[in-house]
């Protein structure tokens, strides 16, 4: 990494501070707007809640202080990564979330890889055969997938691949009692990953295929493509190493912008496939009305998205050397 990049990363990290503060503020507002506070919930759970007892709890938690003071307490607790305790699960919210985050990240990274790889190749193929039947088939399928609720697609894939064909597991992340060797474990997780990653990735693959096609057609009109063809490069090389590389930027931009969207989608997909990530945690929190946990998940997932956007910005520089981090 050169000095410019280090400075760029440093500045971008500093810029994150107000964003994270804003996320925290939103979270705080939502907590305050929710009916009943932590004291009500705790008192309710203990089952012998007198009014005095609830008031005492409120004093203990500082819930009787002015709102602005509560907000600063909330922020300073967040600064030490204290997201509070899940009253229902009797565990710190952060622990619960960090426990599930890796599974969600694995699912999302795989889905993004699936989406970009298939979307980009389909887009290039469609653009090379513009107006032909291959192009038409790709366009129609992309339109259909784009209109399909992903969670429902997941259920239908389960019906086909797990129930009818019995090819792939219908849920979970690994078989119970799978052997301890790392290779067997990785293969088992990979088998469980196929359907959820495909389900989550296909929707975005459809978007990227359409975008890549349009972007390729635009690049095809530029002079350097004519030059590449004029010097006798095979059409395949023109398409893939000249046009595709340049047409890729809008796709990467969009993929970066959609990380938050995809995280939302993964909640549904994880619920469908029993994938033990944040999505399942959201589902459980909903079932148990564990609002503190829900808000913690909103906070952490927002921060994850902000960090992921930073990574995408850095990737830009690699893809397009013209972009320098000034």
């Amino acid at each position, binding site marked *: 990494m050169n000095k410019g990049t280090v400075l760029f990363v440093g500045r971008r990290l500093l810029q994150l501070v107000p964003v994270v503060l804003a996320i925290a503020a939103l979270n705080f507002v939502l907590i305050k707007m929710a009916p009943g506070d932590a004291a009500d919930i705790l008192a309710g759970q203990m089952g012998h809640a007198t009014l005095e007892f609830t008031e005492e709890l409120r004093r203990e938690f500082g819930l009787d202080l002015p709102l602005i003071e509560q907000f600063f307490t909330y922020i300073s607790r967040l600064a030490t990564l204290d997201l509070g305790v899940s009253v229902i699960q009797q565990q710190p919210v952060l622990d619960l979330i960090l426990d599930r985050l890796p599974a969600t990240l694995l699912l999302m990274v795989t889905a993004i890889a699936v989406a970009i790889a298939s979307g980009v190749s389909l887009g290039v193929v469609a653009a090379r055969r513009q107006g032909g039947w291959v192009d038409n088939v790709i366009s129609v399928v992309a339109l259909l997938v784009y209109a399909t609720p992903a969670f429902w697609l997941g259920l239908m894939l389960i019906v086909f691949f797990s129930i009818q064909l019995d090819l792939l597991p219908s849920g979970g992340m690994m078989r119970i009692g799978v052997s301890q060797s790392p290779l067997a474990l990785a293969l088992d997780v990979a088998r469980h990953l196929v359907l959820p990653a495909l389900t989550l990735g296909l929707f975005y693959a459809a978007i990227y295929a359409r975008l890549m096609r349009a972007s390729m057609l635009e690049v095809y009109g530029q002079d350097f493509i004519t030059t590449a063809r004029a010097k006798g490069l095979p059409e395949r090389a023109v398409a893939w190493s000249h046009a595709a590389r340049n047409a890729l930027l809008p796709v990467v931009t969009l993929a970066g912008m959609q990380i938050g969207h995809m995280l939302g989608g993964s909640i*549904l997909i994880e619920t469908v496939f029993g994938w033990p990530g944040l999505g399942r945690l959201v589902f459980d929190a909903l079932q148990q*009305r564990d609002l503190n946990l829900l808000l913690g998940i909103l906070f952490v997932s927002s921060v994850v998205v902000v960090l992921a956007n930073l990574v995408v910005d850095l990737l830009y520089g690699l893809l397009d050397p013209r972009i320098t981090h000034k």
Partner: protein
Amino acid sequence: MSRARAFWLRYRNNRAAVGGAVVLAVVVLSALAGPWAYSVDPFDMVGRPAELPSGEHLFGTDVAGRDVLAGILHGGRVSLLIGVMASLAASVFGLALGAIAGFYGGRIDDLIMRTTEFFLTIPSFVLAVVLVAIFSPTVTNITIAIAVVSWPSVARLARAEFIAHRDRDYVLGCRAIGMPDWEIITLQIMPNALPPLIVVSSLMVATAILTESGLSFLGLGDPNQVSWGYMIGVARTVLRTSWWMAAIPGVMILVTVLAINLVGEGLNDALNPRLRTR
């Protein structure tokens, strides 16, 4: 040639969009008139659980012996209502903010755009889930939650349109004759800025329907209303034995969303002929 006719001629050129409009009309009609013509209560137990589609129950019955067709018809109402209302609310709000940001620029623009970017960053579906969970799942609250996570894209587009127009001669002319700002914004620039926004808003209805189905699939639907997502969620428990029960409402969502997307593209061709990419 009247404007409406010119519009129709351009729209008609996109055959897929015409097909989409026809399908959408059928869906809307059956959602509006269906529950009235087919007067089975979607919450009533009318048969044994999980009956296969038959003459008596055209789409079969669900896990609790409720008529699936009745659910589809009533659910269509809820899906379309929430989709249209949420996208309308988001469009009006986004347009207002985008117009102010684009017209005035400066600090107010900064403030609005930072807020917009913030809402674009946080995972929208997670926020919608949290909002509905906190404020209880009623049709109104679900509509508001979807609107809250949908307005930023409209705001950005509206801002760009207003920036493109604010220094044009006709606007300068309006200023010169002392027209108040609000009048320039609403009566002069807005009609010119509207076409691309109409396209985005119509496409947003499709996204809103998808979001609503996801929420009700998670159990965050209005408990007093059947919706397509809820029906999929219920059918999920018997996927192994009665997959068609989950398939039917899903196909309805797919068809509706596809039709709206096609209509949106047709509107784009007809309203923004210069922006056409294909």
